[in-house]
């Protein structure tokens, strides 16, 4: 039993932190937000390609690092601490897991090497207008084409980094009502995409409209079905939770630092019990969130079913981050409320986390159902 990262894992984290700091840290994230790019391409080149983060969880036979979710969590916590604007969550976590879970060996070989090199990014387009994370909400369709391929139709929404990803993994309702996943290059005719402006400007979302998009039979990942997609989403939720731990820790850190120097009534505000107790509560939230996130990382790597673990972790860490970010503003007073101060960036990132990859309410309902409580609702294989 050892509940800690190995020296190698800590070394990767250190390298990531150094690369982000070299790239400008939170200031770079602010720039990516303000210039509207929504992605820090220079940083992604450094992190994704040079440090190998793009292929962290991709097997080495496909050019990746062949590591797993413990390393994903170790790394994304560092990314979250500085709000790094890179497609790590969307491409290296969510889409990579989806391809690995749903695809055949041939499809792995076809899709993963370019992603591992950082030459291509991908994302999962699964939510639609309702934002309901359950498979029941999938209305987009795939119809078999006489020539052996498929025609995709529908509108996907809230797609992480959907405006910039090269490859879209689109969840659709296939023949017989089952869910299937198609790998669709973003440049395919009929794919229209529009960036959705987000309150959290450090993380981009897009709407993707599929107008009679013709794709070959080989675009369908594996044999279809909701389960592999659900598993990929569950793993990505664990990654997001760890990212939130990084953000929450950053809020605590800069708030503690401020409380030690900011003087009011002739004393540092950190000597007032009201501020001390707020910061103590933040500390407990950060440390407990970190614990459940790390534990979930281990389960994502080793447990056969992580739906409930992932939902529990996602709900807890999203709440902890939002509470810490909100408290950070309050501890800072007026200055924490300004555009120039970073507190607002964390606050908006944290707010977005309440619905990203499914709402915290949906996560709690998942946990409640697993306890046999009466919220019975079909969440099985997504087949209609």
């Amino acid at each position: 039993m050892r509940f800690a990262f190995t020296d190698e894992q800590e070394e990767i984290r250190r390298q990531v932190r150094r690369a982000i700091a070299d790239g400008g840290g939170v200031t770079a994230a602010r720039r990516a937000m303000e210039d509207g790019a929504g992605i820090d391409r220079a940083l992604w080149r450094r992190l994704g390609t040079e440090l190998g983060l793009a292929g962290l969880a991709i097997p080495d036979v496909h050019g990746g690092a062949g590591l797993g979710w413990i390393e994903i969590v170790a790394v994304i916590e560092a990314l979250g601490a500085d709000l790094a604007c890179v497609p790590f969550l969307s491409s290296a976590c969510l889409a990579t897991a989806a391809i690995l879970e749903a695809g055949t060996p041939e499809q792995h070989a076809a899709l993963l090497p370019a992603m591992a090199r950082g030459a291509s990014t991908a994302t999962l387009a699964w939510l639609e207008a309702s934002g309901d994370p359950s498979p029941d909400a999938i209305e987009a369709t795939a119809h078999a084409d006489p020539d052996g391929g498929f025609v995709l139709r529908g509108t996907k929404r809230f797609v992480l980094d959907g405006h910039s990803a090269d490859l879209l993994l689109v969840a659709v309702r296939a023949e017989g009502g089952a869910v299937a996943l198609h790998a669709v290059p973003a440049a395919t005719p009929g794919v229209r995409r529009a960036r959705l402006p987000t309150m959290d400007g450090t993380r981009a979302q897009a709407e993707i409209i599929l107008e009679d998009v013709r794709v070959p039979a080989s675009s369908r990942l594996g044999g279809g079905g909701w389960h592999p997609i659900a598993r990929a989403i569950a793993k990505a939720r664990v990654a997001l939770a760890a990212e939130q731990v990084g953000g929450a820790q950053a809020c605590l850190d800069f708030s503690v630092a401020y409380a030690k120097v900011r003087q009011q009534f002739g004393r540092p505000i950190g000597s007032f019990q009201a501020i001390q107790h707020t910061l103590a509560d933040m500390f407990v939230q950060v440390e407990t969130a970190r614990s459940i996130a790390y534990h979930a990382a281990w389960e994502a790597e080793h447990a056969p079913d992580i739906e409930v673990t992932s939902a529990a972790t996602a709900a807890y860490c999203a709440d902890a981050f939002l509470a810490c970010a909100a408290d950070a503003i309050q501890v800072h007073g007026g200055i924490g409320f300004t555009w120039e101060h970073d507190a607002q960036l964390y606050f908006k990132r944290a707010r977005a986390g309440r619905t990203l990859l499914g709402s915290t309410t949906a996560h709690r309902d998942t946990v409640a159902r697993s306890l046999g409580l009466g919220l019975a609702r079909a969440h099985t294989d997504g087949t209609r």
Partner: protein
Amino acid sequence: MDLRLSPEDERFRDEVRAWLETRLGGDFRDLRGTGGPGHEHEVVEGRMAWERELGAAGWIGLGWPAPSGRGASLWRQVIFQEEYARARAPGRLGHIGEHLLGATLAALGTPEQKERFLPPIARGEELWCQGSSEPGAGSDLAGVTTRADLAGDAWAIRGQKIWTSHAHLADYCFVLARTDPAERRHAGLSYLLVPMRQPGVTVRPIRNLTGSAEFCEVFFDGARAARENVVGAPGEGWKVAMATLAFERGASTLGQQIGFASELDAIVAAARARDADRDPEVCRRIADAWIGLRVMRAFALRVLSHGAQGELPPAGLGAKLYWSTWHRRLGELAMDVLGPDAEILRAPPCALAPLQETFLFSRADTIYAGSSEIQRNIIATRALGLPR
């Protein structure tokens, strides 16, 4: 106990309502719903004209004695505020002049000061801003370091103020400054009336987390105020500033609640439109918000009713803490009702829908005008008599 207004007061309400309907149906039609907390940057020219319109009709300084005001009762002031909010009349640019400086001068000003400053406020012609907080003295007003030195017939002011609303529009600023550098903390402060349109005054807007600029920094670098334009005696500025703070809790609270109610209406509508009201938890959170509004109204009526017979009762010290906490929670509820669409803006980088604005701007409510921590300190010591 009698919670009805007199028939005369009800007729006054009709009068206010009719006037607002007429005026906001005409040239000022486009001003409805503009301005107010989080929206102070909107249609400024039009709202300045509107201030003059209000002034010409005698609606500013309603409670002041003649000749500047009409000597209206507290309940009539409340009625005006309620109808003003109900008509979605524009957020007041003259609020600080009327309710803070005006009330302070009415209580503590010299006859000359009243004569000079109250009439242009009542006419809606001169706007005021407030120079209290400083970068190093936010919640701690006694920590003020802005200096004012008497040089001949005028005070020369040097220092920086922050969180000043309307500073770029205002004609005057009331400034808490240290006039006796030998004294520390509460002593040696004076309350000066400083023209804003003069050399030595620089205004820099502060962009807040909603992307708009609600507050400003004001830099005084040798700006002048006439020797006689100090309220109260030199060195007694602390007492005057505390009186001004007390006026922040006044009749406007019932008007504010009407704005809150319309935000809650928007949340109810959004919940129904999105079927979010199929979730009992959402419904109960909305119910709690509605209950909170009822609480606020009953609380305000009770406090004002005592106030109408003299001093505001200690219960009133809880009003800011209650509404700011309530409003912050309302913003969170709004986001949850909107679901994943809560994240999507009207346009980049920060064109917010009204409920998003409520959510973000309400984070300031527990900070400005005395943070929640300060409010609790005040309640503990003043209302409960706990030892410092």
